[in-house]
């Protein structure tokens, strides 16, 4: 069992960030607090864009717009995002540049990466954004993506097996289509793909179950802290087959697959069932309970990532206060102000709300007032 002692741990933080032609910023140079950094401004002013730039430096892509070239400022030819990071006493320079119609260039300490995937996970980050409600309201794919993302961060073999599984699945589905078109079913051609699905599927299933054994207690703990109430929450992993009968189940589904022309059984269909007091959160949870559920999931992800990396990831809270009651916001910020959490970036529409909040918590906070793609003013609240 992984040990989740969250006492003071080494720290990673972004010290400086500079933007050129990134989204609505022509040029900006920002110096950050080690703890809280808040961006306040109206919708469209550009507060989320700063968070997105930080996200870029961790994941080599935007969380808001997947088309890289659309993140270049209107009528410009390129963008550059640069950051200075401090990790375990060492200082690293990260650079991400994109010219129109050219490939994205990503450098760490002036050295370009051969593959962007080598960078992902090195500067871990956990994002909370309004889109996270999909975890509860969306399809099973959203939930699988969440756990696959967390496990992949500490288990490279898992990621490799998942990619292999998905590729074999595409091949098998293509074959089932060919069978339907040609009205001919050739078992020998199908069996070889079944073997890929079984070998990798069973591994993935085992790892997901192991993951939940460790993840659940951490999640429960955060939920209790956030809600302050006595609700029982749990997550059930719903699997179509077990490790021991995976082969039989896939064989049993063969006739169904033939008719449907795709693979109907496997870990690509598994789901997570979120429960509160014995009922599904999706149907029976209040808005507040659903929010707490999502935030607890993300904080548990934070704890997992921190455990694996040995230092605190960066936390981004994009525009999440609006939909959350004041009490939950207070609980959440109090929680992440503790020293087992690291650097936090927040975007919000109300500067006064932010100021009041951090004064009452007594945490160090730098507030940036954002207006039309530039920083109009900064203000620092000192820790008490």
């Amino acid at each position, binding site marked *: 069992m992984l040990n989740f002692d969250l006492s003071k741990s080494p720290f990673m933080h972004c010290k400086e960030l500079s933007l050129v032609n990134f989204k609505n910023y022509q040029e900006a140079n920002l110096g950050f607090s080690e703890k809280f950094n808040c961006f306040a401004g109206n919708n469209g002013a550009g507060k989320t864009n700063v968070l997105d730039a930080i996200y870029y430096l961790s994941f080599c892509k935007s969380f808001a717009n997947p088309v890289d070239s659309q993140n270049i400022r209107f009528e410009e030819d390129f963008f550059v995002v640069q950051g200075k990071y401090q990790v375990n006493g060492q200082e690293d320079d990260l650079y991400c540049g994109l010219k129109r119609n050219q490939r994205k260039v990503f450098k760490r300490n002036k050295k370009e990466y051969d593959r962007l995937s080598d960078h992902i996970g090195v500067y871990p980050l956990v994002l909370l954004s309004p889109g996270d409600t999909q975890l509860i309201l969306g399809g099973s794919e959203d939930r699988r993506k969440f756990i696959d993302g967390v496990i992949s961060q500490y288990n490279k073999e898992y990621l490799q097996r998942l990619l292999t599984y998905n590729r074999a699945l595409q091949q098998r589905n293509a074959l089932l289509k060919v069978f339907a078109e040609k009205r001919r079913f050739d078992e020998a051609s199908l069996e*070889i793909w079944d*073997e890929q699905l079984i*070998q990798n599927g069973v591994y993935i299933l085992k790892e997901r179950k192991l993951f939940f054994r460790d993840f659940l207690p951490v999640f429960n703990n955060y939920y209790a802290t956030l809600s302050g109430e006595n609700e029982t929450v749990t997550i059930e992993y719903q699997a179509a087959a077990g490790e021991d009968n995976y082969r039989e189940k896939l064989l049993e589904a063969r006739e169904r697959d033939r008719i449907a022309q795709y693979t109907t059984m496997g870990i690509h269909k598994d789901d997570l069932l979120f429960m509160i007091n014995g009922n599904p959160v999706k149907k029976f949870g209040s808005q507040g309970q659903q929010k707490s559920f999502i935030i607890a999931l993300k904080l548990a992800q934070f704890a997992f990532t921190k455990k694996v990396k040995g230092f605190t990831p960066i936390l981004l809270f994009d525009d999440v206060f609006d939909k959350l009651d004041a009490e939950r916001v207070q609980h959440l910020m109090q929680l992440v102000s503790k020293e087992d959490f690291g650097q936090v970036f927040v975007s919000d529409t109300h500067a006064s709300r932010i100021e009041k909040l951090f004064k009452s918590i007594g945490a160090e906070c730098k507030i940036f007032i954002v207006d039309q793609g530039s920083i109009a003013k900064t203000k620092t609240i000192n820790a008490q």
Partner: protein
Amino acid sequence: METFSSRLLQAAVEEFSRLPGIGKKTALRLVLHLLRQEKEDVIRFSEAISRLRQEVIYCTQCHNISDQALCEICRSPRRDNTVICVVEDIRDVIAIENTGQFHGLYHVLGGIISPMDGIGPNDLAIDSLQQRVEKNKETIQEVILALSTTMEGDTTNFYLFKKLKPYHVGISVIARGIAIGDDLEYADEVTLGRSIINRTPYQNSLTK
């Protein structure tokens, strides 16, 4: 589209620019270069290409490029006919020959199984491999699978293994010194040579 003073010039440039990796500018440079050469040289050049396409045949045994029904490798008395190395295409034969480490015979499949690309077992020279092993089971001792180390390569290996198992020949795979996803064509000669020498018996495990 550029206009040329001569239709002949334009036709030649267009043909060249249909080659992979050749743009209009390079095509024009090549054509002008040919115009500066002796007539006989250019005729020899064009004859080589046209004869290649018209006269080339594929070896009836291993499907390698050949001038006769049996290719030079299959005909050679110096080759070891107890070992067959199964590869995807002709470029792999050339790559392995360049290592100088393999003295057996080949079997060119013509690709790997990939339903997404419309390639099934029947589109590849798998039946002919099976027949070849069946017919020569007294002499053939080992079949080496040297397909690319992709998921599709692994899956094709598994299919071949199942087809060849009844003949009780040794089946081996080349050592995975090459990174996942690399094609044989891109592996350097030393690495490739080593991976053939260090081949291991095939085991029914697809992923490792």
